[in-house]
């Protein structure tokens, strides 16, 4: 029985130590998800959190300049001006009308300072099958066609 107790103590020490580390890491990296519409309503401490917001990149809004990229995210009928200041190059999938997730914090003037930008890509990316991406009329083409299973 004593052997089991010793093992138990070892186990508890490890689990507790990891719990403490996990708590520290949590404090350092926790990020709040918000929608664009929620941002203006945030009060007090909530404005200083690290925040993650998703939206669609407004066509023609991307302005690249040295050390930063400005663009506008659209979502739920609202818009949010974003300045990306991170050092990594933006992903290749980041273009007009792409879906983007930005992580960073709110600036005083209500705009958003992003340190990370992700844009929709890879295994989940599926354009509407009837659409022709070369023309801007993608959405219209998708509306006209519908899918039918052969079964």
């Amino acid at each position, binding site marked *: 029985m004593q*052997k*089991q107790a*010793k*093992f138990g103590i*070892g*186990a508890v020490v*490890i*689990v507790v*130590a*990891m719990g403490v*580390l*996990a708590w*520290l*890491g*949590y404090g*350092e*990296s*926790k*990020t*709040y*998800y918000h929608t664009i519409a929620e941002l203006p309503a945030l009060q007090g401490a909530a404005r200083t959190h690290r925040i*993650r917001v*998703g939206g669609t990149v407004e066509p023609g809004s991307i*302005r*690249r*300049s*040295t050390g930063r990229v400005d663009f506008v995210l659209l979502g739920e009928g609202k818009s949010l001006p974003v300045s990306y200041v991170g*050092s*990594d*190059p933006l*992903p*290749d*999938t980041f*273009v007009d009308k792409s*879906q983007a*997730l930005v992580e960073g914090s709110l600036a005083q003037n209500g705009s958003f300072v992003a340190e990370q930008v*992700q844009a*929709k*890509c*890879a*295994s*989940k*990316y*599926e*354009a509407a*099958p*009837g*659409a*022709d*991406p*070369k023309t801007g009329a993608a959405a219209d083409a998708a509306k*006209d*066609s*519908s*899918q*039918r*299973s*052969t*079964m």
Partner: protein
Amino acid sequence: MDVFGSFALLLAFVCAAYALVGGIVAIRTRHALLVKSARQAGIATCALIFLATFSLVYLFFSDSYWVAYVVTQSNRSLPTFYKIAALWSGQAGSLLFWSFLLSIYVFSVLLTYRNKNGELMPYVGVVMAGVQIFFLTLNNFVASPFKVLAAPGANGALDIFTRADGNGLNPLLQYPEMVIHPPNLYSGYTGFTIPFAFALGALLARYPGEKWIHLTRRWTMIAWCFQTVGILLGAHWAYAVLGWGGYWGWDPVENASLLPWLTGTAFLHSVMMQEKRGMMKVWNVWLVFVTFMLCILGTMLTRSGVVSSVHAFAQSSIGNWFLGFLILILVVCLAAYAKNRDYLKSENQLDSMISRESSFLFNNLILLVSCVAVLSGTLFPVFSEWLSGSRISVGKPFFDKVNIPLGLILLFLTGVGPLLAWRKTSTDSLKRNFGWPLVTGLMTGAIFFALGLREFYSLLCLILCVFVASTIGMEFFRGAKVIRARSGASLMTSAVDLTMRNTRRYGGYIVHMGMVLIFVGLSGAAFNKDVQKEMRPGSVAKIGRYDLLLQSVDSKPEPNYTSERLIVEVTKNSKPLMMLYPERRFFPANQESGTMVAIYSTLREDLYVVYAGRSPDNNEVPVVHAYLNPLVKWIWLGGVVVVLGTIVTLLPNRRAVLALSGAQQPAVAPSLSPSLQPQVTLREGHD
């Protein structure tokens, strides 16, 4: 072909349903013919899924742009190589591919054991059919890859129409690794179905003894190996294609692939306790159950977008199906456990803290804690929304803080565990086994400390790596010495001979050695550097010992894309070294661009150069982002060693008797070709 494929899938669904229901009835009635017909329905299911998959491949090869899935994933100028990869590049296809790989396993299992283990196999068949039915439901009714394009015609009915060309494959996926990474990872995910089916089957059948473990050991090793390779290939893809200079970002989909690996690794170790000492039976069964559930969860996270990630963004209804399936598995497992709990009674108890058993216990504890940490970190947004209403995610610091120390403890156990005796280890043997390795490790640590290495975790990792490598080296050396004394062959030959006599033990050591190499590689990340610079032809960027001179920029059209590349001359310590060609590719089919990183890789460090685009406000000057990542190559080397080690563990042991007879004529055979030897002296292993 699309009609053929969807019909084959539908028929496969029917056969799988028969295999399940017929199997259950067969178990109840013990009717021999029914058992046989259920098994054959299982085999037919697999064959039909093969046919469906091949017909989808055919649709890709024949550029059938009336099939929606082909349109979204392929185009005419896509190279053949990538048309295969297009098969699993989207939702519907990758789910069919899951069914396909699972069928390969199920097919092999049903054929291998068709005349053996008659008491157990009907149960195993039923479980496997259950899993197949779930995926076939998705393939048939939720995400069929055989949907065709149709539009309302003149008379109001739907007419099938054909597009001239497809949208093309996502450029990020047009990379050789993307052709082999998903099959590996998926083979890992699907492969754990087999040990799961055997464990659940054995529990339901109250199948006596540890035989299900012997039966599944190889299958588990194969699945584990695929999973390991899949994870490493994914990391290498992220490193070589995404152009951010790293290989692991704690992205939900990466985490999803790591979770079953962690519990699967724990399982591979803890089953040894059951085999040797009859302990941990309940634990082992639940480890397999959990591993399988994590495989399903991993597939769900990748496919459903429950947690946003690079791979999965938008919401998709398919998540609910997976959630339902997970709950069903859990209920079945709990019910089976509750009913036959007494069957899993442990035969022995822990004898000593310093024993093989306790090192396995700690190994399992560490892997499980790591798994829980990664799982909770990954699903944190979901949980926090339930609990507090606000969606909160955690990032790299959280995962690093927990997993780095856990990894190092695990590394320590890797060195210590295998050399501890079962039950209890004497102080004497501790000194004998660990004295020198410990001294070597500490001395190396001291030397590097004197050279200026101050990063705590990296130093500790280095010491542990040397320590573990020495214990493994000593094991081979000692064993080989004994054989050499008897046979007179060279030390190297004796070491090979030693390995072949106990493939499981020495193959395990080789796998451990591979893990050591991987840890060496991971420890380098603490010293990564990077520099970003706008460069005109003729300008120079400096990083570490390297100077990068941009000579010129050129551009050339390829069939499927146009490329623009930088011609960069690299000099090291002012001596010309080589040319690098970082590249940007533009794919007209889907109006997307891709980055091709140029990497100069040595054992010491990787020089990693990205063409990051053109500077927007400075006359379109190219921007170069260069990284210097120490030791990364060791990770990929470690992966190769892990695979070799796993292959060794899969080989049957060479018979000791034959090795002895070889000893009488030492001059001839054994020294030549180690790869040919096992064929001469094969012996079936446990099964």
